[in-house]
């Protein structure tokens, strides 16, 4: 019995090790590529680049082009951090753009999500179930069909009202519909005992006071979770931003920028001159986002399972 158990353990250790290698190798490859000194996309065909160095990182910070023959004379088309123009103006790159969008989204989307989920969880009003059903059904419609309409509406605003598109457009698009994703925080609010509310109501508290003074202090974890999710959203989001941004570098986000760096503008070639820079930038962006994700791992679990445990 014991021998069987040990064999089982050994087999599982072996399987897990093999799987871990499979899962980590691509990422390790990416990190190694970022330290490649070969320039261009030559190093792609090897697992470990021929020569190692920090040139790719220098390239993305100084916006120079590190290609096969060394430093190229022209500048990189992709501004990741920031760039100083000849006339001295500072151009903010995609990283900071995304940071601004992420912060804006975090504030507005968190507010909207919490408001919706609180209302749907704690308050009883006419049309509540209808709103929930509509939210569910709206999630079924392919999002970017509406996105195209939104794009033209923004163009309309630009031409008719003179308000140009900008980062606010992205913040608006990311956060305005955030209320529909109320499920996880509603599940959390559902777990807070309703008796507390009732007790407060007997003592004469209004619903706003209950929300502000009782429910909010009790729900710090879900606020943190919602805020972090909203913050992380724009970092990995491609479809909306690519459609809205097109080629406007003033509101480029990292996802679109990196996609262009990796694929090239025509969307067909597998590797470009910017391959090494792409890897460096990807590593740079992945680190903070990954840390955040690991930090809110446990919320993710309770989010997926939370709704069902109660059933």
């Amino acid at each position, binding site marked *: 019995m014991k021998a069987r158990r040990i064999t089982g353990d050994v087999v599982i*250790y072996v399987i897990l090790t093999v*799987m*871990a290698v499979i*899962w*980590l190798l691509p*990422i390790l*490859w990416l990190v190694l590529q970022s330290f490649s000194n070969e320039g261009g*996309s030559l190093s792609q*065909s090897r*697992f470990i680049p021929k020569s190692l160095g920090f040139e790719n990182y220098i390239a993305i910070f100084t916006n120079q082009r590190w290609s096969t023959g060394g430093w190229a004379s022209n500048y990189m088309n992709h501004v990741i951090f920031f760039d100083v123009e000849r006339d001295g103006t500072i151009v903010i790159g995609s990283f900071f753009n995304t940071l601004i969008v992420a912060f804006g989204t975090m504030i507005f989307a968190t*507010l909207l999500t919490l*408001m919706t989920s*609180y*209302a749907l969880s704690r308050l009883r009003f*006419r049309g509540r179930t209808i709103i929930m059903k*509509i939210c*569910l*059904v*709206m*999630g079924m*419609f*392919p999002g*970017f*069909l*509406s996105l*195209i*309409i*939104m794009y033209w509406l923004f163009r*309309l605003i630009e*031409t008719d009202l003179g308000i140009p598109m900008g980062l606010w457009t992205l913040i608006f698009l990311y956060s*305005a*519909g955030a209320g*529909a994703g109320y499920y996880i925080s509603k*599940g959390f609010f*559902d777990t807070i*005992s*309703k*008796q*507390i509310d009732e007790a407060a109501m*007997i003592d*004469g508290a*209004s*619903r*706003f*006071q209950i*929300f502000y003074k009782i429910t909010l202090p009790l729900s710090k974890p879900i606020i943190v979770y919602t805020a972090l999710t909203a913050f992380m959203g724009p970092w990995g989001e491609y*479809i909306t931003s690519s459609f809205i941004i097109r080629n406007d570098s003033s509101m480029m986000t990292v996802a679109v920028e990196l*996609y262009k760096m*990796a694929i090239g503008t025509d969307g*067909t070639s*597998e590797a470009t001159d910017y391959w090494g820079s792409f890897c460096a930038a990807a590593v740079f962006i992945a680190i903070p*986002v*990954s840390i955040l994700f690991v930090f809110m*791992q446990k919320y993710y679990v*309770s989010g*997926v399972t939370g*709704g*069902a445990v*109660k*059933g």
Partner: protein
Amino acid sequence: MNDNNNESYEDEGGLALDSVKGLEKEAKREPWYVSTGRSFGRFLAKLAVGILGFLFDAIKGVFTIVFGLFFGIYKAIVGVGKAFRTAHRNFYEIDGYGKASYFAMGLSHFKRKLYIDGIIYLAIEIIFILWFALVGWTSIANLSLSEQVSEEFTNQGNQVPLIQGILSVIVIIAFVIVYSIYLKSVHDIYVIHNEIAFKDANARALYAIENNASFQDVRECKTARGRREVLMRNHGFSRLAARYASYLPWNRLDPKPHGIEALFDEAVRYYDKARAKVYSFYDDLRKKIRLKGLGDLFAHFLEWDLIERKSTRGYSSVRDLANRRYLSFIHTYDKYNDFHSRERTLKSYISVLEQPKAIEDCVYSRDPISQKGGLDAKGGPDMPLVYALRDPSKYIRAAFPEELIGVSRKKKDIQATMNERLAMDGKLCAALSEIFYVANEASKKAKVPGHEPLKDGKIDKAGLYGMDFDAVLKVYLEYYEGRAREYAKKHASENETSPKLIASRIVGLFGCDYKIAVNVARMYLLAKKMGSKPAPANKLPSFTKSGKVNKFALAGKSTLDGLALFLESYRNALSAFEKENADRKASALAKAEIYSRPSEYLAAAKAGRNALLSAIEKDYPNLTDFDLDEVVRDYLWALKEDRKGKDAPSFERIMAMKGKEAETYATLAQEDFHGQLMRFSKKMKTYLDERFAVTVLALPVLGSLVVSIVPLIFSMLIAFTNWDRYTYANRHFVWNPSAWASLFGLGGGDPLFLPTFLELLVWTLVWAVLATFLNYIFGIIVALMINRKGIKLKKMWRTLFVVTIAIPQFITLLCMRNILGSSGPVNTWLLTQGWYTDGVAPALGFTYANGDPKPFPFLGDLANQGSLPYDGTNPFVLAFTRAFWAKVTIVLVNIWVGIPYTMLSTSGILMNIPDDLYESSQIDGASKWRQFWSITMPYILFVTGPSLLTSFIGNINNFNVIYFLTGGGAETTPGLYYKAGNTSLLITWIYKLSTGNQASYNEASVMGCIIFAICGFFSIIAYKRMGSVKNEEEFQ
């Protein structure tokens, strides 16, 4: 005769039928010609009846049609006439705010000094008109005429006018809806307004009757029309007043008072009738408006109107008065329903205080329910369990003794039965069923020698074997009480001082309100404190109505006695409270009764105030002084009014009217009270309380409306235009359902569209199924491996996998794309390792024309794979196309991406499965395999089941994996329609169709609608099956 008999037998039916039939035939055999003739005759008769029936039906039908037509036309004419008349009245007879327009609405608000509301209404109207005049109309015109597109739009193509046009259509529809609802409320206002006018007319008419001498010019007119004109011209009567007065019997008017009174009465009666009608109509309308979502606003507006009129014109409706009386009648407190909540609070106090023993236990123990939120929390005793075990008969044995004792049952069954019969807490139920199950099993088995049931403060299950049922329960009880004692010892000092700690335990045990629990804890501590002091000689225990106990009454008593005193005081308070309310109700009903029997008190009333007082007091001792006063005053007033005059109301009549009114109060008192209209500032405050939902949801709903709902309607509408790649350049759009037609092969369009759509649909569904279920199964397997008992470094393994999902997906996917690309490390490795040169590649057909090996098409026909085609004659290449390999890669990479997600959520669930389940099943001899299928899998499925459907839907719309890996395939794939690739999902195809220079947006919209339908179908299934949706209320 024969036939009849047969039929009657058949009617009876049953088994004997055949034999009976046979007997009949045996008995009366007829010659063939008779039977044939009879059946022929029967046939003829049936035919005749049939023809007649048909004729009759036809005639009836013709008549119906003719009459229907006639009545239809007649009704239509009448209906149209009515509608015109109503509309005419609505718009013609009312001045000021009768128009169906926000202008009028806004202005009428200004009239009432509701400036903010007025500004809102005006602004809405003005914005709409301006917008529509400037933008909307031109856009619609542009869309439909479409020949001349204004210059300013040329830069953006025709999308801008198209969007504006559709936006205009939506806005107009919205306004039509709003107006139609608004019209109703306008009609309502009209009715009220009419009533005011009517009262005015009534007053003027009365004035004219009383002072008819000065209306000589009116008397001279022979016709009513003439009188009307004179009244309007010479006397400044309104149109309605003139009409009213013109019908008065001017000829019979004479200055005698009697005549005036008669006329007066007649007029008043007429007026009363009209008013009643108007009010019932008004009420109906208001109800209807309230039922409509948007109409609430208008109903509100109307309420204001009513109240304003009441204060300025000085008359009040019966209903309004009743409401006010009702307020003074039942609302002792400020808030509606406050009485009930107080009663409830008192009752829960009593229910807690009724168990002083249990409260004491709370003080000396630390129950895990309030501390950690679950029975399985380690370290604390389970107090509810202790109470249940102390008295098992109360909980279980009394309920079903023979089922539990001596009969082997599954734990689950016991729990189910317990749940069913005794509505007790689920966790307690589970724990008890476990104990009872063990007791049962133990009592059936032979005794294990050399075991003690209780060892080192823990229960040794093997030691229980051979003991009888009650003995096992006793062991458990001993065990739990021992734990309770230990805890009491451990936490004695902190428990004695903190009412909050005790309160939390009381909440856990009794499930009562926290505030009540704190108060009870305080009472307990007070009783305990006073118990240690000697009782003062001069203070005796006393109680008050409000539930407070004289502190000194407790001195010298034991804590339990002190609690009993509290309990008694609360009981007194409740009974006093209930009595008070009963008195109020009784007095209202009594008043109604007194008013309905006027003649009985007539004599007493005539004898004077005091006699009446004592008479009523004798019959209704419960009546309060206030009510008594009112009744007596009414009686005396009625007596005074009841002069012997011919037309004056009799005493009886006045009292009967009063009685009716009182009855109305009494019945209204049972109904809800909704409050009156408030000032603006107060109204705003309700948005933080009763209407907090509106405040909170306004922004999210608006946001979703702008970002998803309106664009959704847009997209669906665009599916019916000709915005495709051909017209994209022409900038020429019209309404045209060509995309739908070409999809369903109804002519027009490309014949490839439908087959391409079907191919991609199949691949989308296959992909969604594979992606969902493979990820799910493999994820569970990985989670099980990591969570196996012997495996060390669980956290490290988990984190290793989590790292891959922590990195933004586009990075990992682009990375995979380059790894598997033709010049990526994998293909390079394959080439250098002699995989191809050893003859594998040529055999498989992966060669260039000159025989050089070609990279393996992991990602299908991405560009850069050379213009040279693969060996088209090779059977392997023919059997497994490049698209096939790309699909395989996509599914595998998706597993790579998806497993960690499933693993993460599943291992969370695995850790939550209580160990007891495994332990007890092990005692019963379940194998590991059996445990997995009977415990682990059902648990996982139960928790993650709903998310499985959601992720299925998510995979149908999974854009990232496909788009970043292959981009859906080449833009122009032979055999596929515009922009579709071999590995495209519907969603990536839509993306490609609707982006780029030659967007074919109507086709994209058509497919969007279809995806919407498919996903909607699945999501409705998911929604209906989601337990948390069904039992939502139970979990709060």
